[in-house]
């Protein structure tokens, strides 16, 4: 990626959201990720019950639902933080009954976190660099003996540093490179979180409430970043979000969860029309 691509077509995309979904729906490929009959329990508490849905290549797939609907748990199952008691997850034809974080990462699935899980003690740069870890090859000895003159480790560092710098430009956080993330304002931390995920050059990007607690401008920036990523690299995006407005604007298809069950699935318009969803959100029962 390069910094200048941050503007250009995407600006238009952000400017005219209505036009975008149509534009992208044509690009949707076949199913990359399929979740079937997932159930997850903590002791007696049922977090997820028999959830199934699929994610297509290049699409923006949203998972919505009220608090405690089990959205984050769903993501945690996908990248192996939790192990569901039942159900299977299929990724590019390979089927698992539980995922292993490392494998998931190697298969090109990256993820951001709802309440920031950044590495507090490290600088912005190091946080994003850590996203490149999977791609770094030099062994401990090479790293121990690294030096500016004759060492693979040094070369590797600066190569990856280059990639990371582009991400930093893209996310417009150049000024904070060497600041410990702990000291950054919330909105920027969210960007760093995204940056760390992007550094993995993911094929599928799981975003856990990327806009939670942001003001309007920040939300617009963030949705722009997301759409850009999706456009430029065709990265498939699975997105958890509260803000219905944003979701409906930027996502192609939406899954709705409530109390750990799936109550709706389809395009934004279909979901909008779905009575269960409405009742879940407006709290009326029928």
């Amino acid at each position, binding site marked *: 990626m390069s910094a200048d691509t941050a503007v250009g077509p995407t600006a238009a995309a952000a400017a005219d959201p209505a036009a975008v979904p149509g534009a992208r729906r044509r690009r949707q490929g076949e199913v990359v990720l399929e979740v079937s009959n997932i159930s997850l329990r903590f002791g007696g508490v049922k977090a997820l019950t028999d959830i199934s849905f699929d994610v297509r290549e290049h699409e923006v797939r949203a998972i919505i639902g009220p608090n405690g609907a089990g959205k984050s748990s769903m993501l945690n199952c996908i*990248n*192996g*933080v939790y192990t569901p008691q039942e159900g299977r997850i299929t990724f590019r034809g390979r089927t698992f009954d539980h995922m292993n*974080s*490392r494998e*998931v*990462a*190697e298969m090109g699935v*990256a*993820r951001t*976190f709802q309440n920031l*899980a*950044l*590495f*507090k*003690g*490290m600088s912005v740069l*190091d946080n994003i*660099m*850590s*996203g*490149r*870890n*999977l791609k*770094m090859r*030099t062994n*401990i000895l090479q*790293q*121990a*003996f*690294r030096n*500016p003159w004759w060492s693979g*480790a*040094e070369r590797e*560092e*600066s190569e990856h*540093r*280059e990639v990371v*710098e582009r991400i930093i430009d893209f996310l417009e956080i150049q000024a904070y490179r060497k600041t410990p993330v702990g000291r950054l304002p919330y909105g920027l931390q969210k960007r760093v979180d995204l940056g*760390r*995920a992007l550094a*993995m050059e993911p094929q599928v990007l799981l975003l856990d409430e990327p806009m939670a607690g942001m003001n309007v401008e920040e939300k617009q920036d963030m949705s722009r970043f997301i759409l850009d990523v999706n456009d430029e690299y065709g990265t498939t995006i699975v997105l958890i979000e509260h803000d219905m407005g944003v979701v409906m604007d930027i996502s192609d298809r939406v899954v709705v969860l409530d109390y750990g069950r799936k109550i709706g699935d389809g395009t934004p318009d279909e979901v909008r029309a779905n009575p269960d969803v409405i009742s879940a959100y407006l709290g009326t029962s029928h």
Partner: protein
Amino acid sequence: MLYRENGQFKTSYTSDLQVFPIAQDRIGIALLLAFAVFAVPLLADEYMFRAILIPFLILALAALGLNILVGYCGQISLGTGAFMAVGAYAAYNLFVRIDGMPMLLAILLGGAFSAAVGVLFGIPSLRIKGLYLAVATLAAQFFCDWAFLRIKWFTNDSASGSVSVSGLSLLGWKIDTPHEKYLLCLGIAIVFAMLAKNLVRSHIGREWMAIRDMDVAAAVIGIRPVYAKLTAFAVSSFIVGVAGALWGFVHLGAWEPAAFSIDRSFQLLFMIIIGGLGSIMGSFFGAAFIVVLPIFLNQALPALGALVGVTISTAAVAHTEFMIFGALIVFFLIVEPHGLARLWSIGKEKLRLWPFPH
């Protein structure tokens, strides 16, 4: 005014990746090293060498090792003494059993053995966290103490279980005078400090810190906790082991397991807390503080007493030393929980902006 980085532009990432990106720091460090290598031998007397500088360097090395485990990887260990002991006894056995074994090689191999033991006792850290782990590491401490006391083979069947080495030499250079010993320790300390610095600023270092700061997130971006933690244990115990070997070979000359007792483990932990967790520099600050303070106190107190005309008994001095030491530790934790290293960097920040406060 002197301490400014403006006008120093980085034209390549490599130049920005340097250990000391600011020219003044580079010069400062160079001067410091020059001083340590050339000036100190001129200034220090034998007592200075044997009782302060050599122990300081060796313990600083050990603290450095511990800091990698605790400060960078966030795994608390109270078993450091044991790993020093493993290093010392392994080196001893290699040194006396294989004749013609070069001292330096023996010491390094001692470190290697220590690393192996470290990994072994590090395995629980994959499941056990925090204080539970801390106490679990005490198992290493007490077990090793026992093993070196009980298993005659380790001590080359010496009746008393105490071992000793002599006739140290390095590549034909005979090391007997205190200032040669000092230079040896200094050299080793510097080398390991550099290597450690390299590790912590490379991706392995980032893996350790990631595990320390947020292990779940670390796992999600593809860091294997097993690998990160065990490498931390290995590297840490390696350095600690080397320090242990030096402690036995160079400082004590003859030792028994008591030389690596649990008190040593605590002492080292103090050093990195006072000096600064997660800071190479800090390990040295901490070691200096902890080594010098008691000696200073128990020489200063009688002098002070003499000033006001009362003779303080040795016992009183010893007890006061305990009290002041304890009090200082607490005072420190209250004033600067992040240790001397933090004070140092704050100082630098200030200096950078001086004379303009913002």
